């Protein structure tokens, strides 16, 4: 009888131990590319739950990136933050300002292969995660703008379809040939479309980085601590002059606002011969282009250059230690080479780790679709995306001033000085 009791209490104890170890995590995620991606995420999480009996992750779809940030902020104020979330890599400063997240260095150091894991990510994708000497987020759904061009139209105007433009001069030269006007002067087809709308400066950033020197990473428009911007630098000025001239002087691009969402449609309809758009649009364009198209690096002035964009994993602060550990296990699993490859193929985002490209799944896919490798290779010229404290406000300031210069309401110099002045005022409270 006594033996029975001992065994019984042992079983009970172990059983209760197991119950106590079960950790329930909440995971907020946005969806911002076309297609049923919420289902892909849910399926991946279900697979994680099935293989990790002690951790149950509940995925919570939270709209677009901005909606997800709003939901996270509300949850934090209510005292029930999610355990883990995908938010823009550039949301780092916003999350730091409300002290919402934990640095991940502790977890990385605790893992035997931690440093190897971090080094496997493309450095340009990691750049937005670094602040105050810590790593705050893990890249997951990332993209860069790339050049898409219509090979049929290249042939039509006598350009070599296998030689996309590589410099700004060539971009203008090709654009002039590709732009087609009716006898009355109205434009039938634009040589180039670069999205510029809605306070969104992502594509313009590319032009800034393209004024750098080859192999160096020194074109800076914001300080590392996110409290100072350098909008009046020569790099920004040169970029703005060229960006304005594309529509005002060379007239190979529509002047004024160019809607992000309609640029791929214009390209597919043959209304624009070349476009700069997210790598995330590649699948959409590949599935719908009724012509042969090419993908290439965006041309540069002295060097190729591009910003990165997209979302990273963050782990939150006001949760128990056991939750943070479980969240880290989840993040590591979601960013394992196989899962990174699977996610990249299903979503169209860049696979964020080098080793993902040597997985069987990915190499089979890229040997069939080599165009997906262009974005990866362009990462060698990538810079971190513009981010600072009060990012939404500062970005809007810059966008509005760029627009004034492009629409001819101010000279580029005046516009950038005004942007710098207003941005300084916004950033003042964050300077120590």
């Amino acid at each position: 009888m006594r033996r029975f009791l001992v065994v019984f209490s042992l079983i009970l104890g172990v059983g209760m131990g197991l119950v106590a170890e079960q950790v329930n995590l909440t995971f907020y995620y946005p969806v911002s590319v076309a297609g049923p991606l919420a289902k892909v995420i849910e399926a991946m999480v279900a697979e994680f739950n099935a293989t990790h009996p002690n951790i149950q992750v509940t995925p919570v779809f939270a709209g677009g990136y901005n909606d997800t940030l709003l939901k996270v902020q509300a949850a934090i104020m209510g005292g029930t933050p999610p355990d883990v979330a995908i938010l823009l890599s550039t949301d780092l400063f916003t999350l730091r300002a409300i002290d919402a997240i934990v640095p991940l260095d502790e977890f990385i150091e605790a893992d035997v292969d931690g440093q190897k894991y971090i080094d496997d990510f493309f450095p340009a994708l990691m750049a937005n995660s670094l602040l105050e000497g810590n790593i705050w987020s893990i890249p997951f759904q990332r993209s860069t703008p790339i050049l898409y061009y219509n090979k049929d139209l290249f042939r039509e105007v006598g350009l070599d379809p296998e030689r996309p433009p590589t410099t700004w001069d060539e971009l203008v030269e090709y654009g002039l040939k590709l732009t087609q006007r009716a006898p009355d002067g109205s434009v039938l087809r634009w040589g180039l479309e670069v999205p510029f709308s809605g306070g969104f400066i992502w594509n313009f950033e590319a032009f800034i980085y393209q004024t750098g020197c080859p192999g160096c990473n020194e074109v800076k428009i914001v300080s590392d601590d996110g409290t100072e911007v350098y909008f009046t630098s020569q790099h920004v000025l040169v970029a703005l002059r060229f960006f304005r001239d594309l529509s005002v002087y060379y007239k190979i691009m529509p002047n004024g606002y160019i809607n992000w969402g309609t640029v791929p449609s214009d390209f597919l309809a043959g209304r624009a011969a070349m476009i700069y758009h997210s790598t995330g649009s590649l699948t959409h364009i590949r599935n719908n282009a009724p012509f042969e198209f090419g993908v290439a690096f965006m041309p540069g002035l002295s060097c190729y250059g591009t910003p990165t964009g997209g979302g990273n994993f963050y782990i939150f602060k006001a949760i128990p230690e056991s939750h943070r550990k479980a969240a880290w296990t989840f993040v590591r699993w979601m960013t394992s080479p196989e899962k990174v490859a699977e996610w990249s193929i299903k979503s169209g985002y860049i696979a964020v780790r080098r080793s993902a490209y040597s997985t069987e799944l990915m190499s089979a896919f890229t040997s069939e679709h080599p165009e997906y490798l262009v974005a990866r290779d362009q990462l060698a010229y990538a810079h971190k995306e513009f981010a600072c404290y009060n990012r939404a406000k500062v970005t809007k300031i810059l966008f509005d001033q760029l627009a004034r210069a492009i629409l001819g309401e101010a000279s580029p110099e005046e516009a950038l000085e005004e942007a710098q002045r207003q941005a300084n005022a916004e950033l003042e409270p964050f300077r120590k």
Partner: protein
Amino acid sequence: MKGHKGGRAIRNLGHILLILAAISIWLVPLWWTVITAIRPVSETLSLTPQWITHRPTWENFKRAFNLAPWGRYYLNTFQVVVGTFLLQMIIIIPAAYAFARLTFPGRDLLFYVLLVQLMLPAAALIFPNYTTIKTLGLVDTKVALMLPYAASAFGTFLLRQAFRTVPQELEDAALIDGCNWLGLIRHVYLPLIKPVFIAFALNSIIYHWNEFLWPLVVINSPSKRTLTLGLAMAFKSQETGFDWPLMTATLLIVISPLLMLFVVFQRWFIRIYAQSGIKG
């Protein structure tokens, strides 16, 4: 005589053209939505606008149906909309009556305080409301979607103004005849202010049917999502440009019941709006 007749014909023609123009403002976007929803993706990329489609397809609707369990979302939205409205009735009818007919100290001050609510946009109250809901332990419940709207200042204001137009004598007569307070509301006040009451109901239903931000913040479980959250799955493709056929097909799935309701009851709707003088 003949000239007079001709003048009338021209005037009638003018009326008809005017009405056609007005109809087309409403009809063209709807027509475009329907056409885009049933055309193949490749056709949406045509250089010139295509007003009809030669190859209608259900493919977009199939994709839209696969996005989310729409039946469940319908049920959720329906429950929330009806629940919110019932809660509002329970609270604002007595409140409106009290502000309209009873005299008690501080009545006017209280009323003005209530009106301040009208001036605050709902989005500004998201954080405080969330904190309250959290304290009550109601996060991720449908009740949380209804509660912040229960004491509608707009509804109270509207009904109070309407109640005041009812002659005091009618109330007195009913009371003398032995009618109690509930009976008074049911048989005297509500029938007399029916148009205002229904206008408020429509306003409430349409607002909560379309609401996005608050459900987004409060709801976590996929099984409790409302229609608007489902719509977001088709519409939030900000990184890749717009998939118009999918967006329009999803939109039609979501709005078609309301649209049908409107077509069936349109005479009634219009009469009510015309009587109450409320803009939608």
